[in-house]
């Protein structure tokens, strides 16, 4: 990049921000609401053929014979590709056996139905909830960690020891837009790929090597995506097959997964189950010791929840002994799922800690406050705990565990805490200022629905003294300069840094052009509300349009990169968050309702609080979903997934989520603690940090804790469905 010479890229301070930190509507909101936004699913090309998969109906099987002749004989079926043929071992229900490409979707389905496959059905494992029942050959060690001396800590007379088992099942991403692709060859060696992806710039290379053309010959387009959540980074089988078969047939090929196939094959979140023993000091309420055996599955490869997240956040517990196992199960393979490992970590840790607090007989809020120094960011968590407690009216509604009333409806409160990285990814941005005054911003990024377009428009508008709608943001095309994949909450830090630098670079060039006509040095100029103004004499100014007319024939192009070793950092990483749930449990039906849910979140300098808050709402709703409803249900006999649909793979509707309160920590915040200390944190200071993932981490634990508080007993496994709630109550000895 051209190093800024007289303008600083530093984010303007609070008093000098026009757009940053202000609520701005999504620039593509109207497009989405009216259907003008085109998703991969909406792409239909002339003479396009459709592909449909035959999937394996068994959890574990060997393909003995496969006969595709009847499919091939159907008029209109153009290609039958065997993906896993005779002799192949299939490891989960839903894995692809064959692909049929035909003139229409219906014909492709007819083709799929007429393929005959004979399987040898093999033994399966689909239930990993009971560690003792898992055959040894299905277990792989997942690590061991020790610190201090847990036994000594547990045995000390001042220690209260609390034991429990906790679990969080495998779930899927359930992207509303299924995975899929349209592949079209412009010529023998030039391919255009419309693909639903979180990885526009990184896609072409992956596909190009598979179809043996230069990477630059593959153009990837994804303007809008209907959800990815970590499951859409690669081209997948369908991407590669669509590209290959489109070339062979010399016509565009579209493959979109059906809902069942999407839920079966396109990614799962690993399960996590843990037997946990916690030791707390009876006097001080401090956590002294943690012992855990963790196990879980991420599919046939094992890879359950990582040992690194138990205990979660409270990593400073002085005595620890933990071990983990990975279970190789015949279930859909894992993919990164929004904040990989963290929701499991929270669900297994915050629950065990809350049980310790209840056993001690102390207020859960007080307990977490007492123990924040076992985390990496005690000040932030203290502030966030206190802010959240205010918003949920903790003092008013809290009661000791189980004292949630007499009638059938019992209320309770629960807490959870989380962290995330959110470092900026690599990104390059070009800002073009045209002689007519229009501004184009180009980056090979993508907007997962988080508001990326809007944020880029705001940053460039802020930098150039324009309004966001005057900035034309172009993303979603691999022809634009490369940006990282949108995973790990890395996007906003990456694209805001690169677009800030690119816009600054472009502006410098513009100021250099126009300075002589105003009769000042470029460094004496600034932008303000559509004008270029002499800092020393604001009456000397020209409008943006007038200024741009002096550009000449070719547009000015500013270039910005993240990282930029020559420039100060504009983004960083590391956030905290606290969530609290207020629930009502019907102890006669086991049904849990959310009354109010508070999410307090920091994420550095917030560019658009409106879309940031939307991210928090979305994360919390997704969290309520896995806390109360979502699970992949497998049949013990056949090993099949029983609910690859949206009828029994349950997600909440608006009526189920209760009142959501998203509170963002912004700017300099001072909070007074109950013991009279004053804590001040400047949340803007670290620069921009990503946010997509953290809000989804805590709901499982917060809601589970609230339910335990309401009914007086822990429901050990999520989701908190009526059967589980009633079973826990029955174990306790009937109705609460």
């Amino acid at each position, binding site marked *: 990049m051209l190093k800024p010479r007289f303008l600083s890229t530093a984010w303007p301070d609070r008093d000098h921000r026009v757009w940053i930190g202000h609520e701005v509507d999504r620039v593509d909101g109207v497009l989405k609401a009216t259907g003008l936004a085109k998703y991969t699913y909406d792409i239909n090309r002339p003479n396009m053929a459709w592909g449909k998969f035959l999937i394996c109906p068994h959890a574990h099987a060997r393909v003995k014979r496969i006969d595709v002749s009847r499919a091939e004989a159907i008029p209109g079926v153009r290609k039958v590709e065997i993906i896993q043929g005779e002799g192949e071992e299939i490891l989960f229900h839903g894995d692809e056996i064959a692909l049929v490409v035909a003139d229409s979707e*219906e014909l492709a*389905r*007819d083709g799929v*139905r007429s393929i005959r496959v004979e399987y040898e*059905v093999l033994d399966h494992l689909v239930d990993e909830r009971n560690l003792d029942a898992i055959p040894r050959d299905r277990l792989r060690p997942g690590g061991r960690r020790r610190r201090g001396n847990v036994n000594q800590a547990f045995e000390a007379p001042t220690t209260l020891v609390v034991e429990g088992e906790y679990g969080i099942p495998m779930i899927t991403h359930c992207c509303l837009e299924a995975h899929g692709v349209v592949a079209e060859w412009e010529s023998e060696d030039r391919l255009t790929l419309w693909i639903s992806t979180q990885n526009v710039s990184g896609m072409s290379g992956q596909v190009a090597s598979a179809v043996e053309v230069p990477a630059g010959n593959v153009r990837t387009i994804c303007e809008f995506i209907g959800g990815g959540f970590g499951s859409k980074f690669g081209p997948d089988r369908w991407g590669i097959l669509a590209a290959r078969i489109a070339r062979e047939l010399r016509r565009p090929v579209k493959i979109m997964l059906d809902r069942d196939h999407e839920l079966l094959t396109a990614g799962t979140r690993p399960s996590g189950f843990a037997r946990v023993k916690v030791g707390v000091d009876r006097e001080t309420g401090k956590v002294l010791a943690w012992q855990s055996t963790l196990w879980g599955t991420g599919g046939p490869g094992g890879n359950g929840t990582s040992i690194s997240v138990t205990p979660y956040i409270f990593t400073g517990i002085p005595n620890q002994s933990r071990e983990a196992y990975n279970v190789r199960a015949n279930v859909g393979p894992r993919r990164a799922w929004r904040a990989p490992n963290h929701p499991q970590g929270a669900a297994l840790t915050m629950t065990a800690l809350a049980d310790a607090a209840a056993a001690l007989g102390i207020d859960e809020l007080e307990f977490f406050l007492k123990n924040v120094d076992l985390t990496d960011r005690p000040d932030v968590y203290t502030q966030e705990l206190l802010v959240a407690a205010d918003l949920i009216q903790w003092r008013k509604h809290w009661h000791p565990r189980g004292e949630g009333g007499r009638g059938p409806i019992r209320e309770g409160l629960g807490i959870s805490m989380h962290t995330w990285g959110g470092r900026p990814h690599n990104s390059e941005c070009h800002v073009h200022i045209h002689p007519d005054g229009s501004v184009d911003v180009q980056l090979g990024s993508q907007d997962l629905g988080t508001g990326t377009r809007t944020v880029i428009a705001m940053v460039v508008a802020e930098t150039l003294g324009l309004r966001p709608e005057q900035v034309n943001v172009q993303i979603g095309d691999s022809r634009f300069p490369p940006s990282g994949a949108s995973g790990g909450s890395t996007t906003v830090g990456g694209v805001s840094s690169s677009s800030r630098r690119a816009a600054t670079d472009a502006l410098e060039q513009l100021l250099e052009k126009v300075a002589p006509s105003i009769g000042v040095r470029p460094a004496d100029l600034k932008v303000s509300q559509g004008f270029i103004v002499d800092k020393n004499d604001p009456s000397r100014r020209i409008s943006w349009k007038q200024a741009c007319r002096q550009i000449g024939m070719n547009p000015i192009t500013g270039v910005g990169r993240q990282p930029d070793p020559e420039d100060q950092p504009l983004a960083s990483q590391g956030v905290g968050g606290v969530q609290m749930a207020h629930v009502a449990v019907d102890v*006669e*039906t*086991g*049904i849990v309702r959310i009354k109010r849910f508070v999410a307090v979140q920091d994420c550095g300098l917030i560019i658009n609080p409106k879309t940031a808050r939307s991210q928090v709402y979305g994360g919390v709703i997704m969290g309520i979903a896995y806390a*109360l*409803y979502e699970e992949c*249900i*497998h*049949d*013990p*006999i*056949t090993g*099949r997934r*029983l*609910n690859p649909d949206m*009828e*029994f793979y*349950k997600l*909440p*509707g*608006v*009526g*189920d989520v209760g009142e959501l309160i998203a509170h963002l920590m912004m700017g300099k915040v001072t909070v007074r603690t109950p013991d009279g200390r004053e804590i001040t944190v400047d949340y803007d200071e670290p620069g921009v940090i990503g946010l997509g993932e953290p809000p989804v981490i805590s709901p499982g634990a917060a809601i589970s804790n609230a339910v335990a508080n309401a009914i007086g007993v822990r429901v050990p496994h999520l989701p908190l*469905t*009526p*059967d589980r709630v*009633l*079973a826990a109550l029955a174990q306790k000895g009937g109705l609460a």
Partner: protein
Amino acid sequence: MRPFEYASPATVQEAIDLLGPTWNDAELLAGGTDLLSLMKDDVVAPKRVVSLRRITSLKRIEVTPTVVRIGALVTMEELTQAPEVAAKFPSLVIAAGGVTSPQIRHHGTVGGDLCQRPRCWYFRAGYGILATGADGQPLVPRGDNRYHAIFPEGNAYYVCPSSLAPALAALEASVVLQSPEGERRVPVEEFYRIPRTNEEREYVRQPREVLVAVEIPNTGLKNATYEIRQRQLLDWPLATASVALRVDGGKVVSARVFLGHVAPRPYRATAAEATLMGAPLDEERIAAAARAAVQGARPLSGNQYKVQLAATAVKRALSSLI
């Protein structure tokens, strides 16, 4: 979905003529909210689909002094909006309103609700209505049966999906079936039966019969339904109870109690009815009736909880009447 012929007759008689002697010959199409999924999932594959949409005579609600007759094509939404139904049969309105998706309420019809096929996940995945495994034995008792029957019958472990059926059965309603042989009336209570094979249907309607209407006698019973579902939207009830009573001189003189979503047909809780008879409807009696309602339940490995839900539904349905 397999290719099929489509017909859209204008009268019931024409519709009947388009039906065949087996279920594979033709299926009737009303709102299509169930039939289309069944066809897409290849659970049914009729050669012909006969739409009822043009038959306006099936869209009427008629009230006489003795009976309220609801045409088979009346939608759930229309049912909840009809003042003559709301006033007399709140039980039915709650059941229809409980179909918790506005889209389905606007498309789904009374006839379709009664004739919809069970949602058993084994049935929908192609294992047949009796969910038969590769070894010829039923899968449900060994499998995941959290949503299945606590009052199974024979090898039938699915639950009757219709929410209207228990409410109608409690109200002593009948369905009117029309075939080439003419019309017959079957009490809703007897409309469902237990299939002996995967080829048989779970209702007594024959392939050549059209369900033309439901008739509810105008007997002035106090009635109520209570449904238990986990989510507010787009969810199936886990258990429901529909009750219809006559109270005379402070005492219950007739009582009908039906449970929904816990058995392959609307389950008549006769023990609960007996408990209620001859006594005032008070809290104590209601609690006893709720317990009695689930006497004899035979829950499976994963649906014990539904026993309590059914009892709770009975308790709450009855309590809403005092």
